[in-house]
Every structure is written in C-alpha cells, then in structure tokens.
C-alpha cells in the first residue's frame, strides 16, 4: 500500500518563473460565469483550471470532475505587492543590507568570523544532500550578529550612511518617513547576493528575497475552491474565488488607469487597494488590516484561515481523519460479560464488516461464506483491483464464480471478533481497548462495570464508539497489545485499574463477614452462579461459612496477607482464613487483584474478577439489601445533638467575633486581624460537620443499611449522611465563606457587615428538614461555584495535556532501554532509572522487597 514513501519535505518559496511554469492559464477576466452559467475563458473559474460541474470536461487534461485533479493558473499583477506573511522577513533583509551597494552590513573581517560557524552548521545538519544552510528562525533572530545589523550606521563596504527603516504593519515600509514602494523593495532585494543571504541563514535556492514581493500570483485550481449550487439553483462561490475576483478587478483597473495616464494619487490609491486585496487573500486576520467580509458581513475564510487552528486543515483534516467500519451508540452495563467482552447489538453487527482475505488455502471457506444468505454473511466483495461490489441475491452466484485468491470478502461481525472500543475524551491509552465482541439482542453497546472504570464511563446516557480493525496487522496489534485483560494494571502507577465497585463491595461484605453462614441451598445457588458444582469442605451445623464459599473461587495455592478495614485479611493456600474482603483489598487500586495478576496472569484475573463480582452480587440478592428514607430519618437523639452542635458553633463564632471587636484577637503571622478572624471562623464552622460525622459514626449501627454501605465504602459516605439528617454545614464560594452580593451583605435580609454564621453561608438545616429561604441561596451559591470550577478545570487540564503530549509524543525507548526523541537526542540513559515497564511498577516493587 505504501508503494511510494515520502522521505523528506523541503519548504521553499515559489519564484515568478516557477509559478508561470506551473500555471496552465494566465487569467485576465475578473468574472466567473457568463449569462448562460458557463465559465468564462480567462476568468477565475476558467475550464483549464479543472472542472467541478459533472457535465464539463477539463480543457487541460480532458478529465471529468472526478478524474481531473485541477490545475494551477496565474495572475500577472500590474504592480508588485508585498507578500503579507513575509513582511517581517523583508524588513529584516532591508535592515541587514546596505541601501547603496546591497551588501550585508558586516565587514569582511566579521564575515570571515561568521562563515566557518555557518558552514560547520550546514555540514552537521545537512550531511550531503542538503547544500543550503538550515538555520532555524530562533537561531537567526537570536544571534547577536544579526541583531546588531539593525543599528549599523555606515556600510562597511561602500561607506554609505544607513538610514533608519520602519515597517508599518502590515506591509508598508518607510525610510525616514518616506514610503518605499514595493517595486523599489523588489529591486533592492534582487541585488542582494546569494553569498550574503546565506550568511543570514537564508537559503537562496529555496527563497530569493525578491520572490517575497509578488509580481505573479498563483491561482489555485477550482477543485480547491469549489462553488456550491443552492437549492434555488443559485451558485454560491467559495470565499477564495470571491477574493480572487476582487484581486483581478483591482488589478485590471490599475492597469487601465496606468495606461490612461491617470494622476499618481489615483494610481497609488489603487495600488494600495491591490495590496489590501492580496493581503486579505493570504490572511484575513492580518493585524492592522480591516477584515474582508462577505455580502452577509460574514468574514471571508482565506488561505491562512483554512490552515490554522483546531478546525484548520492541519488539525482537523490531516492529524485526524473520519473513519469507516465504526459504530456509536448508548452504552449500558452487563454483568454477564467479562471485562474483556463488549456486547454488540445485532443491528450494528449486521452492518460492520471484517475482511476475509481470500487465499488458495481458505478459498473453500470463503466460498461457503459468500454463499450464505442470512446473518453471518458476506456483504461486499472486493475484486483484485479494489472495486467494491455489494452482494445481492441477484449477483451472488456470479460473484461466487468469479471468486479467486486475491479477492477480499467483507463479512458481518460475529462473536469472537475483536473491536476497538473507545470513549471520549480519550485521556489515556486505556480509553481505547480491544474487546471481544459478543453479539446480543438490544440496541445498546454493553460492557462490564469494571471495564467502565478506565473509560471513566457511566451508564446515564454515555455513548461509546466501536471500531473494527481491518488489516491483519491491526488485528494482531489489537489482540496482543490492547485487550482489557492484559491492561488490568494501569501504566500510570502499576496498580489495577479494573476492580470491583459498589454492589459488589457490599456483596463481598455480606459474603465474607465473620457471622455469614449460608444454607446448603443458598450455597449451591451462589456457587453455581460461577459454575462451581462442588461444595465447600467446612461445614457448621449444616451451614457453610461465607469465607469458605468465597475461598472456592480463589486459586488453590494463593497466599495473601494484608490489613484491611481495621482488621486483617489472611488467605492461606487459597483459603480465606480471616478478615473481610473489602474495598481496600479488591476495590480501587486493589492489592488482591494485583496479586492475582502477578501470579496467575491475565486470563485467570479476568475470570477471577468475573467470578468475584458475580458471586458478590448474588450474595447481596441472597442477603437482601435495601435502603429507604427511614435509614436517614433523624431520631430525637440526632436532632438534639444537631442542636447542640449548631449552638456550639454559634457560641464559638460569637466568642471569636467579640474578641475581635474588643481587640483581643491576636493576628496570626502574615495576616491582618480581620483576615485572622475570617480564617478562625472558617475553621470553627467547617468543624461542625466533622463533629456531626463523628457523632453519627458512634451512634449508627450496620443494621442501618445506608450506613452499612458507607461503612464498607460501597456507596456514599458519612458526610452525605450528615447532610441528609443533621446539617448541611458551611458553604464555600471560592474556598471562602460567601461574601459577595449586596454592599456588605449577601442578601438584603441581613444587616450590613454581619459576619455571623448564618449571614455567611452556614446552613443549620438538613435535607430532610429542608432549607430556609436564605439557606437555599447560600447553598445555591456554593453549588454554582463548584459547577463553574468543574467546567473550568476540564478546559485548563485539557489544554495542559495537549501541550504535554505534543512535547513528549516523539519519545520512545531505544537500544539498552534508553529514551530518545525524534531527532535522536538522548533524553534518558535508562528509562526511569531502572528500565522497568511503568505497568509493572508495583510488581517490580514487590519483587524488590
């Protein structure tokens, strides 16, 4: 497929001669179509530049709209104009050369000093094929030599005094207040010798400076600026065409006026207008130039705008591409799938295809496939020359007969195919993984909840994308490098990134807590859910302990000890001897999963995760787990304590405020007294919530299911509890107590400069009771602040990540675990100091101990 491969790209400027050689037509008419809607010869949509109307033929190559790539034309400008994007370069060159003898403003002695340095540079950079010096802009502008040239007063070669030059943006040059015309500049530049140019780092073969003053303007083919026909039959031209028409029109007028001998002022005016048109043609956002607009006052999108920015050619069309063989829909969870699978709706499977490359060895299989007329069947046949034909009932037999090795069949997606699954924003490499497809009824893509963690997906309406790799190479890469089961450990820190959550944690608690015993019936239900049909050995009064049941899914030679949930977790010879399997054993960053992955590998870990979550969820079903508002309902005891806490907070605040008023409050080092008061108040009031949390922790029992969930870290935390049944506590805006609104107060309800808790966002009600009107405002302020911050932080951190990736994307591991960048520069001698794979970091750490 890569028959020809680009080795390097050299950037140059086009000379007028080259433009003329490239051009197939000199354009002379400032119009597009005649009355019949037919392109005018010599106009900007001349048929020699290619055609876009399906009926017409290109006058240069004879091709039709589809086959003709288009050809360049040119416009001869009556008077030269400065290329706006090169104005700065022109300025630099004028400053660095003598206005009389056009030599570089360096004495022969200085030249002798500089030359060897440049030549050395050339040799190092260019090896043999590149002769001209490559000096980067930064190096050139930054070199003290070039900087000094600006201030040279007298030419060291001819002794002529150098006058002060000025560039008035965008394209006007003045020498001591007198304008230098572009043609004069062109003459000046053309007399600078190649030798002198190379001293400045400019490559005279790539760019002769006089080319930076445009005399001949290259006109891109119409294919680059196609017109669109509106529904009304009206033609709407591309912005570039509009601009070219403008340039032509002014150019013509200028020519006529010069021929007619018009006064110089009129000519200069027109010339300036021509300069303006050309400037905006290249870049319609040139600073200091009024923006050229369409009739509808929409600014025109000219050349620079086409390339620039996120929606520009480079980032939108070249760095990223639209793809085929992909699907997108809403996702939802499916506990029956393993982390390695993805559930694909039948409808998607019927439309996505996987190629079968027909060879002499699989041709019989291919023929069988092609003959099929229902679901897993062949949709398209690609012949040897790459022509894609849709398989229909009519042409199937015909295609079957024509089938020979070298053909490609596109068959529908089936169970077991690998597909790349992705959720945006694609923040890290685990946002794209290769799942094994499982075709399912329904209309959503499905995945295991544990596999949703690396994608940061939830199921409240999230959508995800599915891509089917087409080439054998891509399929192999997906298989060996991208399957979730191989990626359980995160490259970020080497800890498991797929683990059990929520219901599963609650279930494991119910299953493995010390007093959990199950009847024979329950036990067999639990175990059969994970396809185990033996009973645990240990039996107690005909009951089986949950720990023993859990041990059934552990490998027989697993040893593991750790502290967890204030107790110990001991697994010996695959037997859970002691402890509860909790969140910090098997949840986020779970060491048990790490242990499994290290000892038994990806496949066993995949199965383990699946078994654990299945049996866990089955246990919650068995034990029963339900919460209601009653779990949160305040008892008399809670209400009293809440009153006490609020009163205490009020008293503390009052004490602080009065000590401030009496001048007793010592200011903390580095703060004023007022700041100190605010700081102390905040600390005191923030504490109210924590005191309440401690109280609840003491008084609630695991009989309360909502509390149980918070306790085992399945869902919710004690703070939620406090806010629901005791008090919301201090609200914060920008990390402080709310302080803005009316003059000196937040709501007119309060007195001015009231610093009391309730006037500054301390909420003493809870969600069950409901908030007072003023409290509601305070709460809304806090909520809005955090919503704003959240949206801001995604933008800020997104941009930071883009910059980081852009800076580091070329780094790779080279020989001997060293790290190098694209230019071959050594960044690290041994990656990370030890050459260890970041994914294996935790495992390596364990081994070292």
């Amino acid at each position, binding site marked *: 497929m*890569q028959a020809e491969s680009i080795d390097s790209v050299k950037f140059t400027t086009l000379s007028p001669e080259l433009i003329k050689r490239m051009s197939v037509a000199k354009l002379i008419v400032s119009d597009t179509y005649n009355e019949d809607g037919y392109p005018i010869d010599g106009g900007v949509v001349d048929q020699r530049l290619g055609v876009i109307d399906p009926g017409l033929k290109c006058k240069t190559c004879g091709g039709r709209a589809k086959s003709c790539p288009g050809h360049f034309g040119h416009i001869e400008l009556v008077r030269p104009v400065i290329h706006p994007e090169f104005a700065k370069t022109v300025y630099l060159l004028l400053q660095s050369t003598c206005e009389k003898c056009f030599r570089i403003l360096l004495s022969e002695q200085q030249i002798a000093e500089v030359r060897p340095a440049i030549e050395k540079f050339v040799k190092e950079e260019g090896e043999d094929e590149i002769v001209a010096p490559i000096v980067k802009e930064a190096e050139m502008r930054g070199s003290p030599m070039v900087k000094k040239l600006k201030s040279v007063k007298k030419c060291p070669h001819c002794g002529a005094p150098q006058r002060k030059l000025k560039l008035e943006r965008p394209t006007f040059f003045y020498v001591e207040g007198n304008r230098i015309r572009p043609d004069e500049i062109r003459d000046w530049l053309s007399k600078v010798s190649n030798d002198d140019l190379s001293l400045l780092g400019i490559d005279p073969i790539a760019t002769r400076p006089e080319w930076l003053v445009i005399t001949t303007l290259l006109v891109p083919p119409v294919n680059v600026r196609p017109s669109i026909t509106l529904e009304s039959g009206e033609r709407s031209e591309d912005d570039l065409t509009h601009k070219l028409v403008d340039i032509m029109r002014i150019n013509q007028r200028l020519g006529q006026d010069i021929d007619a001998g018009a006064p110089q002022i009129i000519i200069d005016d027109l010339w300036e207008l021509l300069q303006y048109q050309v400037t905006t043609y290249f870049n319609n956002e040139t600073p200091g130039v009024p923006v050229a607009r369409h009739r509808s006052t929409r600014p025109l999108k000219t050349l620079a705008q086409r390339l620039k920015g996120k929606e520009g050619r480079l980032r939108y069309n070249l760095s990223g591409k639209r793809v085929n063989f992909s699907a997108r829909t809403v996702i939802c969870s499916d506990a029956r799938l393993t982390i390695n699978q993805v559930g694909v709706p039948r409808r998607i499977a019927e439309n996505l295809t996987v190629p079968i490359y027909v060879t002499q060895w699989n041709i019989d299989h291919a023929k069988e496939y092609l003959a099929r007329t229902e679901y897993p069947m062949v949709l398209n046949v690609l012949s040897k020359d790459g022509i894609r034909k849709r398989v229909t009932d009519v042409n199937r037999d015909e295609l079957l007969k024509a089938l020979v090795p070298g053909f490609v069949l596109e068959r529908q997606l089936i169970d077991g195919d690998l597909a790349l699954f992705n959720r945006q924003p694609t923040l890290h490499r685990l946002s794209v993984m290769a799942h094994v497809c499982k075709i399912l009824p329904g209309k959503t893509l499905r995945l295991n909840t544990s596999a949703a963690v690396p994608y940061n997906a939830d199921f409240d309406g999230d959508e995800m994308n599915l891509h089917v790799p087409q080439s054998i190479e891509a399929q192999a890469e997906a298989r060996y490098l991208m399957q979730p089961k191989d990626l359980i450990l995160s490259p970020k820190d080497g800890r498991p990134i797929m683990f059990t959550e929520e219901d599963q944690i609650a279930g494991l608690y119910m299953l493995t807590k010390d007093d959990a015993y199950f009847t024979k019936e329950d036990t067999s239900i639990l175990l059969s859910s994970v396809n185990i049909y033996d009973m645990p050995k240990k039996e107690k009064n005909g009951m089986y302990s949950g720990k023993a049941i859990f041990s059934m899914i552990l490998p027989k030679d697993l040893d593991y000890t750790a502290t967890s949930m204030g107790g110990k977790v001991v697994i010996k010879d695959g037997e859970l001897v002691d402890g509860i399997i909790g969140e910090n054993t098997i949840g986020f960053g779970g060491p048990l999963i790490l242990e499994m992955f290290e000892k038994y590998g990806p496949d066993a870990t995949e199965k383990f995760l699946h078994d654990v979550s299945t049996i866990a969820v089955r246990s919650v079903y068995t034990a029963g787990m339900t919460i209601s508002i009653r779990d949160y309902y305040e008892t008399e005891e809670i209400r009293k304590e809440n009153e006490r806490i609020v009163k205490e907070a009020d008293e503390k605040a009052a004490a602080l405020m009065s000590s401030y008023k009496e001048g007793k409050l010592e200011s903390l080092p580095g703060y004023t007294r007022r700041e100190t008061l605010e700081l102390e108040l905040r600390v005191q009031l923030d504490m109210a919530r924590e005191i309440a949390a401690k109280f609840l922790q003491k008084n609630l029992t695991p009989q309360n299911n909502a509390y149980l969930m918070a306790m085992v870290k399945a869902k919710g935390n004690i703070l939620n509890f406090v806010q629901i049944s005791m008090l919301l506590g201090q609200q914060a805006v920008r990390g402080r107590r709310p302080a803005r609104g009316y003059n000196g107060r937040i709501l007119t309800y309060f007195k001015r400069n009231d610093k009391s808790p309730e006037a500054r966002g301390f909420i003493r009600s809870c969600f069950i009771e409901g908030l007072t009107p003023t409290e509601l405002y305070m709460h809304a302020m806090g909520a809005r602040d955090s919503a704003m911050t959240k949206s801001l932080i995604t933008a800020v951190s997104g941009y930071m990540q883009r910059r980081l990736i852009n800076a580091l994307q070329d780094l790779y591991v080279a020989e001997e675990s060293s790290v190098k960048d694209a230019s071959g520069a050594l960044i690290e001698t041994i990656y990370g100091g030890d050459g260890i794979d970041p994914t294996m970091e935790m495992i390596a750490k364990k081994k070292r101990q």
Partner: protein
Amino acid sequence: MAEKKDRDLSVSRGEAVGVVAAQSIGEPGTQMVLRSFHSAGISSMITTTGLPRVIEIVDARKRPKFPMMEVRLEKNVSKNYDRVKDIWKKIEEIKVSGVMDRFEENLKSGVLLIFLNKEKMERYEIAARTVAARLSKMEGVSVDQDGDTLKIKVKEKEIRSVRTKFVKIMGHTIGGVPGIMKVVAQQDDEGTFFLTTSGSNIEGVLQIEGVDKDNVYSNDIFEVMRVYGIEAARNLIASELMKTIKEESITVGFRHLGLVADAMTHTGAIKSVGRHGIAGEKESVFARAAYEETVKHFTNASVFGEVDRLKGVAENILIGKQIGVGTGRVRLAIKKEELKKIRKRD
C-alpha cells in the same frame, strides 16, 4: 489455574514512553483542584497547589508565584528554640517599612521623615542607629538620625523621581536575607526545628551561620538551577510535580514525572513544555505547524529552506505514513540472497 510465569518486567523497545508519561499526568488533571491557595494549617505557608502548580512547573515560569524554602538547621542548634529564633531573625528580611510607625514626606524639598517604632525594632533586635547606617549606604541619600526619627534627604529634584526614591527607601532591606518575606519555625516529629520561608534566596540563606548547608530546599526551579546546576533542577521539577500530585491523593509513577523533567532539561537549560519550549523547538516543520502558529512556521520554513525529514510522530500522521514509535518502529529485515531464494520458489 494458569501456571506461574516469570514475567519480564522491562520496557519494550519502541514503547512510546513520552505519551504514556504525558497521559499519566494529564488524565488525573481533571481530578485536581483549581484552587491555587492552600492554607489548611493556619501557620503553614501559602503555596501554589493543585493544577495551577503543575502548570507552573511544566510551563517553566521564571519565578514561582509563591516561592518557598525549607531550611534545615545544624544539629547543635536545631533543638534549641532560642538559637533557632536567632537564626530566624537573621534570615527574615527587614525592610524600613517593617520597623517604622509612620512617615512624612515633602516631595518638593525631597525630604522624608521616618518615625521608627521601638517595639518593632526590638522584635528584630535592630537599633535606630543601624537603620540609619544601612540607609546611608544607599546612593544619593543622606540620613540624619535624631532618636527614633530619621530625616532623609535625597538628591533627586523632580517630584516623580523623588516619590519613587521614597518608595525605594521604604522598601530598602536593612537586615536579613533579601527576598525572604516571612519565616515560620516548625517542629518535626522528632522535635527538631526547621524553618519554612516564603520567598526564596538560596545563596543568601546559605551564608547564614547555623544553617545546615546540605539541607536547604527551595521550590524556585530556576534559582536551584543557578545555584546547584541543571541536575538539581531536574530533580526538583520531578519531585515538585510528585509533591503536588500526591497532595491530591493521586498516585502517579515517579518515572513519568522524571521523564517530563528530563525532557525539559536534557539540553542543559530548562525548557517549557509549551509553544515556546519543547513543542515549539521541534525539528519538524509539520509538527510545529500542526501544534500552534501554523502560518508562521510554514513561512519561516520556506525562507530558510527547511527540510522536514519526517522522523517524529505528528508529521508522519500528517503525511499518512506509519509513525516511528511503538510497533511502528519495528521493521522486517531480510538478506537480499534470502529474498531471491524466496522469489525463486514462488
């Protein structure tokens, strides 16, 4: 169950470790706080934290917004609070404005009256005499001392420049280390005292007696580079990143942060990660153009006749070729004779 395998823990050749590092830092970015201040403990110093600090480091700002130092003291003083206090007083910068009550200025005659505050001077253990002596060393300033009142006359004539001179006089350092605004003594678990300062001046602090010269920490990356060299700066970048990320209770492997630091410093100077640093100084024209300032890079490239040799990732994606990292780096090598043999067989 699967058999026990001895896993190879080393990195694979060609692994795009740069991207992995960038993602490892960028991905948890959304979980970090945007709030730049951190004042959890009342006595602790104000420092930049969270995402703003990470961006500050990665951008290679010339000065951190809140420079900070941690100064360890020599063993024989570090347990004795009085001696610690002595050192503290030597380090904290004292400005004229810090020891005065009020001032009167006459801009026409260029005379400034400063009324010193006894209490404040006592706290810093500085006499009015010393203040006068220190001030008279300033250029174009003559000082008359009368008890706690200083009468200062300046050379300048023009009202505007007289005023700026007055401001300068009041901001003049009369004691301590310049740039150290505030010092707080803290005690660690073993009861050893150490000083944290806001403001950073390594060279100044190193000259103070009693300071453990091997244990001076500053969060000012450029200053550390100036004083201790580029390797120290590299380590500081990595450890400062680690510190800020850890504070958010996020774990990121140190190798990622080290790699960022190495990429920023491998030339011997500190380069920022943005458009004026690593990303903006890439060899490839396409890579630079695709990143930011597209037109500028193209026009300059044509003037200098630059050649893009298509070695990096961005330019190869742009061109449509396979990228040169990861599996894209792997090539099939075959001897010519072998190839001929295979061809013959077919």
